[in-house]
């Protein structure tokens, strides 16, 4: 696995990293056509909210995975993102409900978006603890229900 990360701004603002940011933008816009990555799976982790989508920071994406929590803020954000995705290009979108406490949570989100979720990730104390100490969930608790749910999601994504 290779990790590519855009530059982080420091106390001097974006100026010192603008070169890196511009390069990153150029890279993501060429990924789709790069022969060297033809047989790679590329996963882009976008910042929360609609900003990066509006500025087309994921042109390589053949599928958007919309991760939504069962809260009003998250669902509203998801709706705004969907508007942008559909305005930008005809890319399929898969709905994933995260931090699920019960079936009602899933039904609420599915009802709001009018489609069944491709995956549901249970609320998990393991996830909270892993994030607290900054360790990957897969390393911290490889057999947790959240990991199992993400594994199932991977299978469904690959099967589509």
């Amino acid at each position: 696995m290779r990790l590519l990360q855009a530059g982080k701004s420091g106390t001097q603002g974006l100026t010192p990293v603008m070169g890196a940011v511009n390069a990153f933008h150029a890279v993501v816009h060429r990924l789709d056509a790069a022969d060297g990555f033809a047989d790679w799976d590329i996963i882009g982790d976008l910042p929360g909210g609609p900003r990066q989508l509006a500025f087309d920071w994921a042109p390589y994406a053949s599928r958007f995975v919309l991760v939504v929590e069962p809260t009003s803020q998250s669902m509203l954000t998801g709706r705004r993102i969907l508007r942008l995705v559909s305005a930008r290009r005809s890319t399929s979108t898969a709905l994933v409900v995260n931090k699920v406490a019960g079936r009602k949570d899933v039904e609420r989100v599915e009802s709001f978006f009018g489609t069944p979720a491709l995956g549901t990730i249970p609320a998990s104390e393991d996830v909270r603890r892993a994030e607290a100490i900054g360790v990957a969930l897969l390393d911290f608790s490889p057999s947790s229900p959240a990991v199992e749910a993400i594994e199932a999601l991977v299978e469904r994504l690959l099967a589509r």
Partner: protein
Amino acid sequence: MKIVVAGKGGVGKTTIAGTLARLLARRGHSVLALDADSNPMLGISLGIGPEETDALVAVRQGLETGETEHARSTEGFVGRFGRDAPDAVRLVVASRIERPDPGCPCCGVSPERLLGELEGAGRIVIGDLEAGVGTLLRLRDGQADLVLLVVQPSAKSIEVARRAIEIVGSRLPLLVVANRVRDGSDFDMVQAVADGHEVVVVPEDSEIERADQDGQAPIDTAARSPGVRAIEELAALLARGYALPSTASPLAPMAPGPAPTPRVRQGLGPARLH
């Protein structure tokens, strides 16, 4: 007085900003709540509901549309594009991203420009900033008097807080709000990054979570919950003119309040996947 609320996304920044705005208004202050996030959600935490929040016209987009002759001053924008929220808080949205290639969100009518031009004397302006450190980086003199940095006990939030504190440096007073704190180790984790700044604790609160889930303001549904009462204490500290205690007193035991008054759920309209 101009207060900006900053922090990593998802740490409860907007919930604290909205609740604080209403609590300060209840104490008799004139409060203007500026939603400075391009994904504006402050209306929900203020209690106007998800759909009303989604329908608000942002100043920037309102000016671009130009359907009517607009106000000629920043204060006029507040009147023209703002909306009254409960407890007489005035809410105005700076800018929202709702279409592809929306133009640079930090140029033109930017959140920091509005913060700079809005009158801070005689009232409290609370700016709910976009997640991360971008707006903090662009803040100039006169655009804020105090930074409330909301931090939750997670490695990612702590990292953003560390950078935010470095960016603010000694330019502005900064108060750390340790949110969703469960125990002493959570508090220690946040205090370790606070770099000597005062730390106010807001405990983890399932009633606030429930209000967030339902799209309601915690102050309306869980006014006596530990989290809202902690924000009330924060409001009291601010109202006393930064007379903050020399040492934080985290995790003071709080008696549970009475059960919240049942409210009608505010539903959200449909959305469709494409």
